[in-house]
């Protein structure tokens, strides 16, 4: 399968994967590259690449100032996330529980390359369901609050979701998302979180722990192909690529472990797509025999459709000339993500509620 991307996507992809080609970029290429990279939260990453490749001084100043600004923002958000984690651990110091850091903060703690250029907005944590009530009430005593939620949203979080409503400390702005499992409860797939806690890895000098490498990759994969809508999610696919490159070089039987664990957790479909698209787009060195051993591979027709839709959804639209086909691909991926997360009897009212609310919201805003 060959990847056939529109020119503006090619400019973004080449910029992110092949710094050598940046030397040939003209002003208008750079301008478009920056606008596209910003849209998918990768402008800071691009800045890191340019610095690392030693061409910062050769890039037009109007571009470096924008990359420098993005790096400042990335650094600030990472600092806020680190501090929020510090304060959560401080607040829960007396509670005997087990907390696993997920996503951005976890990548930084695991020292994944380029993690320092990742734009992470929220702090994501995984805690045992049995301690959830204690943790939530302790945090609320110590100054964290839920954002005001509608009764429907409250119900959605409490009954169907894999996380509780987000918490925000009264004096800070970072959102803390506390998960008790990795997949929404409405999904047909079930996961036993105990398996994740049993193999979690402690971090030096801290009470926080990380998912083991294979679970970290699987979590990233299910977020992409199970939990989310894929629109502008190129950053997450790049996370996945980074994780696989990093861990496969450090663990001898990484790929075997990844296959076995995916099959064990019955999450091999999402992992299959992840390997497939990471390889297709970022040329991740996945050994040939690996995808074949995954149990739940999609059929040829399904894969053919996904091959056409996924890249269109992952890559940002051209900021001046949005394509209808890409919009359609996003809509389809949006519906798909909901279909696999919820049975129809929940999904149809859910989408109806969301669209009604959106219209109400808009008309209320336009009146004021």
């Amino acid at each position, binding site marked *: 399968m060959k990847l056939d991307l529109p020119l503006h996507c090619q400019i973004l992809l080449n910029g992110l994967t092949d710094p050598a080609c940046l030397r040939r970029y003209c002003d208008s290429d750079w301008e478009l590259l920056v606008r596209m990279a910003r849209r998918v939260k990768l402008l800071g990453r691009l800045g890191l690449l340019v610095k690392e490749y030693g061409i910062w001084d050769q890039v037009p100043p109007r571009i470096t100032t924008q990359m420098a600004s993005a790096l400042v923002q990335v650094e600030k958000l990472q*600092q806020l996330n680190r*501090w929020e984690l510090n304060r959560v651990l401080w607040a829960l110091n007396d509670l005997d529980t087990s907390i696993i850091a997920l996503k951005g903060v976890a990548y930084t703690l695991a020292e994944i390359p380029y993690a320092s250029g990742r734009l992470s907005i929220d702090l994501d944590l995984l805690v045992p369901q049995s301690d959830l009530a204690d943790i939530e009430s302790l945090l609320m005593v110590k100054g964290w609050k839920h954002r005001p939620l509608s009764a429907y949203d409250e119900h959605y979080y409490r009954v169907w979701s894999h996380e509780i409503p987000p918490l925000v400390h009264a004096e800070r702005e970072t959102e803390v998302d506390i998960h008790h499992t990795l997949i929404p409860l409405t999904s047909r797939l079930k996961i036993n979180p105990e398996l994740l806690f049993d193999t979690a890895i402690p971090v030096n000098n801290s009470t926080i722990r990380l998912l083991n490498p294979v679970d970290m990759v699987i979590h990233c994969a299910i977020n992409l192909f199970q939990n989310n809508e894929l629109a502008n999610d190129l950053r997450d696919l790049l996370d996945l690529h980074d994780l696989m490159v990093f861990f496969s070089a450090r663990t001898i039987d990484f790929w075997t472990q990844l296959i076995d664990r995916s099959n064990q957790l019955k999450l091999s479909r999402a992992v299959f797509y992840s390997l497939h698209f990471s390889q297709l787009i970022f040329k991740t060195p996945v050994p040939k025999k690996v995808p074949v051993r995954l149990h739940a591979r999609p059929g040829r027709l399904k894969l053919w459709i996904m091959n056409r839709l996924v890249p269109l959804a992952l890559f940002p639209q051209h900021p001046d000339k949005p394509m209808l086909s890409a919009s359609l691909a996003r809509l389809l991926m949006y519906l798909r993500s909901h279909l696999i997360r919820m049975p129809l009897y929940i999904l149809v009212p859910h989408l109806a509620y969301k669209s009604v609310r959106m219209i109400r919201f808009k008309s209320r805003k336009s009146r004021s």
Partner: protein
Amino acid sequence: MHWRTNHFETLLIENWNEEYTVFQPDSGKTHFLNQMSMEMLIYLDQKPATLEEISAYMAAQFQQQPDHSFQRNIEKVLYHFDTLGLVKKSFVSSWHGSQPDSI
């Protein structure tokens, strides 16, 4: 229970005629401290102290009555410092035998 400073050495401190603006890199926050609150931090940075110890010291330094309400106010400020991450509780009396640091 003792109180001690938390990463005091990382603070950036500007002295504006005995009023201080302090940047705390861990939190990214900027604090305004007056002479007395700065004095508390400096004292706790030299050695961990109990509430009684620090109250006695501060009362002597600032010529105050070390009575109950004075101590109560020092305690309030200590707890406020604690939520800000400027100080932390330490249950071991010796300077070296401290708890593992959180991130």
